[in-house]
C-alpha cells in the first residue's frame, strides 16, 4: 500500500516534469474586442502583436470577443492551452482577467485600460490618450466656426470621460465660447451607428467631429459633410483626406515586446503602466496643412511640453459642471484622480449616463 503510494508519487513527479518540458515553448496570447480589420483600436493592438512575433516569440490571438461571459471562457482557454503571458485588450475584460488569473498563478496577465490587479500575476497598462485629446481640443477650439464640437462617446467609463474633459479644457483655453455636444452610442464598434451619430451632431451644428469609438465611419461622414474630424487609435487620414486634421495613434508595440521578453526571461513583475506622449505610447499623425503654419507650430510646441511634463492636460483651476473645484489653481490632477474620473468639467453639456 505504502509502496504503491510512493510509486504514484514518483510517477506523478515524472509526469509533471514531462508536462512542463512539453509546454516549454514560450507563447503569448492576445484577446481582442473587435476584428483585427477595424482599422482602429484592435488593429493597433494587432500591430503590437506582430511586433512581438517579429521579435521571435510565438503568439496567438482571438478576435471579436464580446466583453462578458465569453471573455472569461476565451481567456481561460488560452491559459489552459499553455500560454505563458496573456494580453486582454479591452476595459470590459477586467473582471474575467482577474478571475482567470486566480486559477492560473503561473500564467501572467496584462490587462489594458483597467485598474484591478487582484493577484500578483496581473499587470495593467494603458496609454495617456487624454494627452492626445488635449492637442485635439486645442486644434478644435481654433478651427471651429460654429463653436460646437461633436463628440461620439462609447461607454461612460473614466477613460472616455477623461478624454471628453481633456479635450473640452484645452478647447476652452483657446476659445471660451466652445460647446461640447456628446452622443453616447453604447458600442465600441458599429460603423452604421457611428456614422448616424456623426451626422446627428453635424446636423446639430457641430463643425468638428471626434469619436471615442473604433471604426472609421465618423471621419468619413465628416468628410462627406465637409466638416473637420480627427482619427482615433490609428492614422485614418486616407479615409477622409480633406477632413482629418490629425489622428491620435496608439503604439503598443514597444510595450508588448518589452513585456513579452521580460516574461520569457523571467524578469516579469506586476506593475501598472501608464505611458503617454513622452514614452511614445501615444503619438500624433501628421497635422493637416489646412490648419495653417502658425497653429501647427503652436500645437507641436504644446505636444513637446506635454511630453516633457512642462504642460499638463489637467492644470487647475478646474471646476465640475456644478461649479465645484476639482483641481486648485496652479495644481495638476494626480493619476489617482485621473484614473477614477467620473464627472464632466464645466462647459460640457448634458449628464453622464449612469
Amino acid at each position, binding site marked *: 500500500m505504502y509502496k504503491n503510494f510512493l510509486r504514484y508519487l514518483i510517477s506523478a513527479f515524472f509526469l509533471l516534469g514531462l508536462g512542463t518540458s512539453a509546454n516549454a515553448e514560450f507563447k503569448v496570447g492576445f484577446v481582442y474586442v473587435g476584428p483585427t480589420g477595424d482599422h482602429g483600436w484592435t488593429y493597433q493592438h494587432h500591430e503590437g502583436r506582430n511586433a512581438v512575433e517579429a521579435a521571435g516569440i510565438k503568439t496567438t490571438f482571438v478576435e471579436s470577443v464580446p466583453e462578458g461571459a465569453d471573455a472569461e471562457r476565451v481567456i481561460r482557454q488560452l491559459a489552459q492551452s499553455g500560454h505563458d503571458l496573456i494580453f486582454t485588450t479591452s476595459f470590459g475584460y477586467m473582471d474575467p482577467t482577474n478571475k482567470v488569473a486566480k486559477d492560473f498563478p503561473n500564467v501572467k496577465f496584462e490587462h489594458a485600460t483597467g485598474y484591478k490587479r487582484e493577484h500578483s500575476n496581473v499587470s495593467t497598462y494603458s496609454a495617456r490618450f487624454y494627452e492626445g485629446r488635449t492637442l485635439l481640443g486645442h486644434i478644435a477650439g481654433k478651427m471651429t466656426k460654429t463653436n460646437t464640437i461633436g463628440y461620439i462617446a462609447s461607454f461612460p467609463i473614466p477613460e472616455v470621460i477623461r478624454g471628453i474633459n481633456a479635450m473640452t479644457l484645452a478647447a476652452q483655453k483657446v476659445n471660451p465660447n466652445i460647446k461640447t455636444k456628446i452622443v453616447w452610442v453604447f458600442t465600441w464598434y458599429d460603423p452604421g451607428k457611428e456614422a448616424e451619430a456623426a451626422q446627428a451632431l453635424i446636423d446639430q451644428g457641430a463643425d468638428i467631429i471626434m469619436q471615442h469609438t473604433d471604426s472609421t*465611419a465618423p471621419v468619413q461622414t465628416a468628410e462627406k459633410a465637409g466638416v473637420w474630424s480627427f482619427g482615433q487609435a490609428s492614422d485614418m487620414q486616407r479615409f477622409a483626406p480633406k477632413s482629418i486634421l490629425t489622428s491620435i495613434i496608439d503604439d503598443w508595440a514597444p510595450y508588448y515586446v518589452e513585456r513579452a521578453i521580460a516574461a520569457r526571461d523571467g524578469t516579469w513583475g506586476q506593475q501598472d503602466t501608464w505611458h503617454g506622449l513622452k514614452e511614445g505610447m501615444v503619438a500624433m499623425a501628421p497635422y493637416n496643412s489646412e490648419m495653417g503654419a502658425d497653429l501647427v507650430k503652436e500645437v507641436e510646441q504644446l505636444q513637446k511640453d506635454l511630453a516633457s511634463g512642462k504642460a499638463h492636460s489637467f492644470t487647475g483651476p478646474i471646476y465640475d459642471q456644478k461649479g465645484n473645484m476639482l483641481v486648485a489653481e496652479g495644481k495638476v490632477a494626480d493619476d489617482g484622480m485621473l484614473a477614477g474620473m467620473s464627472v464632466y468639467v464645466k462647459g460640457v453639456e448634458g449628464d453622464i449616463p449612469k
Partner: protein
Amino acid sequence: MSLDISFIGILIGSIMASSVPLILAASGELITERSGVLNLGVEGMMIIGAISGFALMVITDNLFIAIVGSMLSGVIISLIFGFLTQSLLTNHVATGLALTIFGIGLSAMLGKNYVGIPGKEFPVLFSGLKESIPFFGPILFGHSVVLYFAFALPFLTNYFLKKTKLGLVVRAVGDSPVSASNQGINVILVRYCCILYGGAMCGLAGAYLSLIYTPQWIENMTAGRGWIALALVVFATWSPIKVLIGALIFGGITILQLHMQAIGFRIPVQFLSALPYLMTIIVLVVISRDSRKIKLNTPTSLGRIFYKEK
C-alpha cells in the same frame, strides 16, 4: 437647435437613408418566408453582399458591376441554403444560423485585403434639386438609385403577392405545400426561386452599407442589421407595407435619439438607446392587431420541411 422646416426635411432624408438596408433585407426575406421557408441567414447574406460589392468596386472600379455582383453573391450563398434545406431537407433554423456564421467568417477572410481602402463616392440623383427646394428637396432628391428602389420595393412586393398569379403561387406554397403540389405546382422550384430572390435582396442591402452608406469594408460591418430585418418581418406580420413602416420607425427613432442626445434632453441615454426597438415593436403590434389579417398573411407552413412522396 433649429427646429425649422428645412431642418426637419434634412432629418427625414437621413432617416430614409438609414432604413434602406432594413427595407431591402426585410422585403427579400418576406418573400422567402411567404413561400414557407425560414431563412435565418439574413445577416450572413448581407455581409457577403457587403464584401463582394466592395471587392468588385475595388477590382473593376465600376459601381454597376459592384451592385450587380453583390446581388449575385447573395444568390450564390442562398443557393447553398436552398440546396441544403430543399434538396437535402435539412432543418431551416439550424441551416440558416449556420449560414450566418459561415457568412461572417467567410466575409472576414475574403475581406482581409480590402481593409483600410477608402470607398468611392456613389452618384446621387437630382442633387441640384435637393439644395434648391426647402423641406421636400432633401426628402425627395439627392439620394442614390438604390434608395429609390428600396422605397418602391415594398409596394411592388405587395402588388406581386396580392395581384399577380405568381404571387398567389408563392402564397399557396407557403400556406399549404401539399395542396399546392397536388395542384401541379413545383413546390421545391418555387421555394428555390424565393430563397434566391431573398439572397439577392440581402446582398444588395449589404452592398448599400459598404458602397453607399459607409463606403468602406470593415469586418462585421452589418452589426446585427440582418437580425433586425428578420424581426421586422415577423412583427410586421408578413405585410410588405408594414415592413416599410417598421423600418422607417426603427431608423427614425435611432436617428432621433441621437439628435435628442446632441440637443441635451434630460432623458437617460440607456432608455433612448432602447427606444428604437421598443417603439418599433409597440407600433407594429398595434397596427397589426387584426387577427383575421394576421391569419391571412402568416405562411402557415413556415419553416416546415416539405418533401414530395414518390
